[in-house]
């Protein structure tokens, strides 16, 4: 995926971009609300301890919420696969729930659970859930019709169909959903903290925003972006390791 030579041009472009920014800062042409790359780097380095202090709970919530979402998505996917008539209902419910703004759900969750870890986990899980679920559903529908007929002719039980046919075919699609949702988990943790928390990267960002602390905010956002990208790349790596390649050569007749 990341080919050394092909990365040269975009890396070069990125560096040029950053250099231009730095130059603008050097001649004081940068608006007050923008921080130069060097300032960001320095900001991150200086506040490393503080940033980690806030990053830790965020990462915890993000990871836990993500795993919960995966579990729920696969479980509901299995249910819909086995009991097909449930699908339109589940889809409608899912799409509409997806349309309800998180900022409406958040206050309800606060009333219900208080400003607790569970509340934050719930928000994170809800935000990651839909893309994973959609991709599981799509993947479970991907086996060719003859494969489904094969399993009918073999008199396989619904769970056997799910385990031996549905899930393996669904795996590539599942990974698409997993990749999309990984950064969303980080986002979910941030939103959860904006809803109510004492500690966390979201709290850090908000406080920097209200306090007009430009460098701190840019540093925090940089860290948020970095962990989002890292989460995405981690899932990509996991995908590479999990899905074994089928052989390519044709052997004979």
């Amino acid at each position: 995926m990341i080919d050394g030579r092909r990365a040269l041009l975009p890396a070069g472009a990125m560096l040029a971009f950053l250099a231009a920014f730095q130059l603008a800062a050097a001649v004081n042409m940068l608006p007050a609300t923008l921080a130069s790359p060097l300032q960001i780097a320095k900001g991150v380095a200086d506040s490393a301890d503080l940033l980690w202090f806030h990053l830790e709970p965020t990462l915890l919530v993000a990871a836990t919420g993500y795993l919960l979402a995966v579990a729920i998505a696969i479980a509901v996917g299995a249910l819909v696969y086995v009991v097909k008539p449930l699908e339109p209902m589940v889809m409608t419910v899912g799409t509409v729930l997806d349309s309800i703004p998180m900022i409406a759900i958040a206050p309800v969750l606060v009333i219900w659970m208080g400003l607790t870890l569970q509340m934050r986990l719930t928000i994170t899980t809800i935000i990651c859930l839909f893309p994973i679920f959609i991709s599981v559903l799509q993947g479970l529908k991907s086996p060719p019709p003859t494969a489904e007929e094969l399993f009918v002719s073999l008199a396989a039980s619904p769970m056997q169909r799910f385990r031996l046919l549905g899930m393996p075919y669904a795996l590539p699609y599942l990974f698409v959903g997993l990749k999309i949702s990984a950064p969303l988990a980080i986002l979910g943790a941030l939103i959860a903290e904006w809803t109510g928390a004492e500690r966390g990267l979201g709290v850090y960002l908000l406080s920097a925003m209200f306090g007009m602390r430009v460098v701190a905010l840019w540093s925090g956002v940089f860290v948020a972006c970095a962990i989002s990208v890292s989460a995405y790349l981690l899932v990509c790596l996991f995908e590479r390791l999990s899905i074994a390649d089928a052989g390519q050569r044709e052997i004979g007749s």
Partner: protein
Amino acid sequence: MSGIVARRRPYAGAVQLTAQRMLNFLAFLLVLGTIWFAAATFFQIPAYLLPTPITVLRTLDENFAEVVRAAAFTVACTMAGMAISMVIAIALAVAFIASDRASRAFIPIIILIRTVPMIAVAPLIILIFGRGPANSIGVVALLTFFQIMLAAKRGFLSPSANVLELMHSCGATFWQTQLKIRVPFAIPYLFTGLRIAAGSSILCAMFAEWLSGAPGLGMLILESYSVQNFPLMWATVLTSTTAAFMFFTLTLAMEQLVTDWSR
């Protein structure tokens, strides 16, 4: 069975789709309303916390002007943001088609940036653009930009090699090829990209308002929550869900229209 398939009017598909989805939505709301009512009565949830659907509707009616004003603000910001991002996205897509170098340099960066949820950057946008409508527009524009740009690029690249060779052999210039071939081919892809972007754009606008205080639906929800006016909060939630759903349905319908038309 006879071979001739009746030709449908181009907009029939779109109209049918819209009608179907609105019906489904209404049905869902009715079911939800019933469950809500039943649950509230059964569990004896205090009315101030979870008012009955009727109370909510009445509140909506009473505060109609205020809710509609907020909705108008949010929708306007969303559309403005999407319009801006569309212009920039298409312009960039054309530039990337024109220059392979630029494409190889910047596309990987854009793909990488796309993995970051733009809402996470919202505090930064608010810092830069202040607390007015500009930050809502900015967040929406940022969010939709990547999706639309990549969709436009894919669309521009979609004509087959044969068609492009044809244009080349006719001596067509870059812009002629662009306008006569690439744009028409790209339109369905563009609408698909719009659809994907539209799905969350209203919610993002509301989100920016929630954080920054711009006078839209997001802010209204926060306000009514903080003064414990729960009926109004729920009324606003209902409105925003409906608005988001309708907006999404609109893009779906437009996509259907364009697909049917191009057939």
